[in-house]
């Protein structure tokens, strides 16, 4: 029980390559890849793999959604194919496009004689991420990043693709995936996704990490920062997120940016002056900066996060 079995049949159907993990092993692998999380994240990831369903990850910017797909591709030792979504993304850019320059060149070169070459054939196709994932010889991780940025029409199209992993290109028929990819979709919640899509997916909502987890993350990713400073930093960020009602709460990536900024100042302890000089890394919205100041600014924050460690004024 409790194991993932991946039969990744190679194209020639020769040998079964089996990778199997338990939940505990998956947890170990995530740690090895420096992704710090508990069962609230691991279980949905594990279930998506086991049930072979897409994993839909929602959460505020910078909480580590995209990172999960990257880590998964490393853990599964396979390629990561990324479809970055944006407003106006359409089928052509996601699936395939005709290489129209090549087509034009051909047509112009041959305009004086009747030629029978089909310019709508494989040779003239430009593969985009979805087709690439479908045609990959081996199981890949397909990351559909920020799906909420696209429109409902594109979402419906994607839903079709995710249903059977086959596409038909009118000019030469149907292409079906050798291996169903591991699919990760991410969303910042800018728009509600369709019920159909949500129904098909295993859902994971990532919230901000606890202070302890964030300390662990800083240790992994900005290890040069001193122990006490690391704790103060994590507590400061928690204070900013939970206690003063900001419009945009600082993300994990902003925590890490702040850690880098403190390192750049060669800081070994937190001071008001230091906070004031580096605050712009954490708070970017003018209204938020005002809120921060109105709620007592650096002085208040420092008072609140003072632990057993040394915190001094300068």
């Amino acid at each position, binding site marked *: 029980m409790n194991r993932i079995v991946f039969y990744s049949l190679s194209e020639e159907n020769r040998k079964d390559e089996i990778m199997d993990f338990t939940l505990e092993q998956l947890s170990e692998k995530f740690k090895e890849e420096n992704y710090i999380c508990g069962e609230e994240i691991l*279980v949905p990831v594990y279930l998506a793999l086991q049930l072979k369903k897409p994993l839909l990850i929602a959460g505020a910017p910078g909480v580590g959604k995209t990172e999960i797909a990257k880590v998964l591709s490393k853990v599964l030792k396979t390629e990561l194919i990324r479809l970055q979504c944006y407003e106006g993304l359409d089928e052509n850019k996601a699936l395939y496009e005709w290489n129209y320059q090549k087509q034009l060149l051909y047509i112009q070169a041959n305009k004086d004689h009747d030629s029978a070459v089909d310019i709508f054939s494989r040779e003239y196709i430009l593969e985009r991420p979805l087709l690439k994932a479908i045609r990959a010889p081996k199981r890949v991780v397909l990351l559909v990043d920020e799906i909420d940025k696209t429109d409902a029409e594109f979402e419906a199209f994607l839903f079709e693709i995710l249903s059977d992993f086959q596409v038909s290109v009118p000019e030469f028929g149907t292409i079906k995936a050798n291996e169903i990819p591991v699919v990760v979709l991410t969303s910042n919640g800018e728009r509600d996704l369709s019920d159909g899509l949500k129904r098909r997916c295993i*859902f994971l909502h990532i919230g901000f990490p606890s202070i302890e987890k964030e300390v662990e993350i800083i240790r992994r990713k900005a290890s040069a920062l001193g122990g006490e400073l690391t704790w103060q930093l994590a507590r400061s960020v928690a204070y900013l997120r939970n206690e003063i009602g900001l419009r945009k709460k600082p993300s994990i990536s902003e925590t890490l940016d702040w850690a880098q900024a403190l390192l750049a100042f060669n800081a070994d302890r937190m001071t008001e002056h230091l906070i004031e000089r580096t605050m712009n890394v954490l708070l970017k919205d003018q209204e938020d900066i005002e809120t921060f100041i109105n709620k007592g600014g650096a002085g208040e924050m420092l008072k609140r996060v003072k632990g057993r460690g040394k915190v001094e004024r300068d």
Partner: protein
Amino acid sequence: MINYLEDHVARFAQVLRSFGLPVGTSEMLDALEALKYIELMDKSQFRAALKATLVKDPVHDAFFENAFSAYFVDPDVRKEQVQGHQDHLAAREEVKKELEFQDTALDLNERYLDMYLQLPDMEQKRVKDFVSRTSEGKNVTSSFKPILEKVIKGALDYQKERRKELRLVPVEPVGEEEIDAVLHQITVGNKEKDLLYRNMEYIDESEYQEARVLIRKLTRRLASGISRRYQHSSKIKRVDLRRSIRAGIRYGGTLMDLKYKQKKMQKPEIVILCDISGSMLKYSQFTLLFMQALSESLPRINAFVFADNLEKIDFMGFSVEQMTQSQIWGEGTNINTALKNLMGNHYQVLRKVSVLIVLSDTKSLQGEEAAKKLKEIKRRVKEIVWLNPLPKADWSRYPTVSLFQKYCSMRECSSLAQLSKVLTKHFI
């Protein structure tokens, strides 16, 4: 084992559904499948597996957690829950007996009975004494009963308005003892902190800041939805290369005739009228706050407040606190005067692309006249949407509801969740 699990998952899904979570068969099947892959005895894995398969929207997280901890309990805790629920039902029966008018129970629905139950002893006694004195009064015939009922309901409504601790989340009982006990536990037994689903009336001043943050979130989502939906009308047309090439083949591959992708739609304009008399004030404050945030990305919003007259709101410098302080209107609500004033002095905002939103409990003087005005306005605008904070179940008690419903689509709207849902439905 599997049957036992199936049973629990199905019942738990029913609890979630009672709170409006869209949990269907396919979610349930996924949940059962998922349970095969985790350590069933490990509660946090078990919870995570159910959550990943049954809950597909982060705003439902808090409900899920509440429901999970109320549903999956030890047998003796369950016994206590069932007992607690039965006590509550028994207490309701007691109340019915306490509030009898000449040996027949007053016609009070469960909501009113629960309201009474949550009053402090002193207040309960006052209500009770009033009923018995009336009941025994000289020359009081049985025809008095409906009048008394009205008075008592009024008194309870008044208490509810005054007392913020009376928080009642209405849930339909399922009719199965254990599930109903769980539902009861979740609704009455917890400190519902979720601003999104809270009746706006009970949002406390100390929570305004949190509420503001929540409103921003909701409006940001709504605004981006609206702009995405309507963007194509203003944007430069995009060339459809594929169609162009096909067409161009005939001319030796020269792109003679560019084909375009196109869509066209006109952005809606909102005219909103908020009733700020008496019990409507809180709803209007939050709705206007919502509109103010929305107006940052949807500039064509005209907002008005009314009680016995109408006044235009300027979103610049508008704040909830200021509205609480400057109550310059009288007591009565007169929708008719408000509509008349709107048509007379603000005629230009009523256009074919506008949606008129009215926020009011419909309790008003001159209802018939107001309905006529609505009819007239309806011909000028795209649509009239009425937001009514009263529970839908009570609408039939107010004749103005059906009167106004002829000319508008009326929606129940007492929480921020409902507000954003209604607006999403109408504009995206």
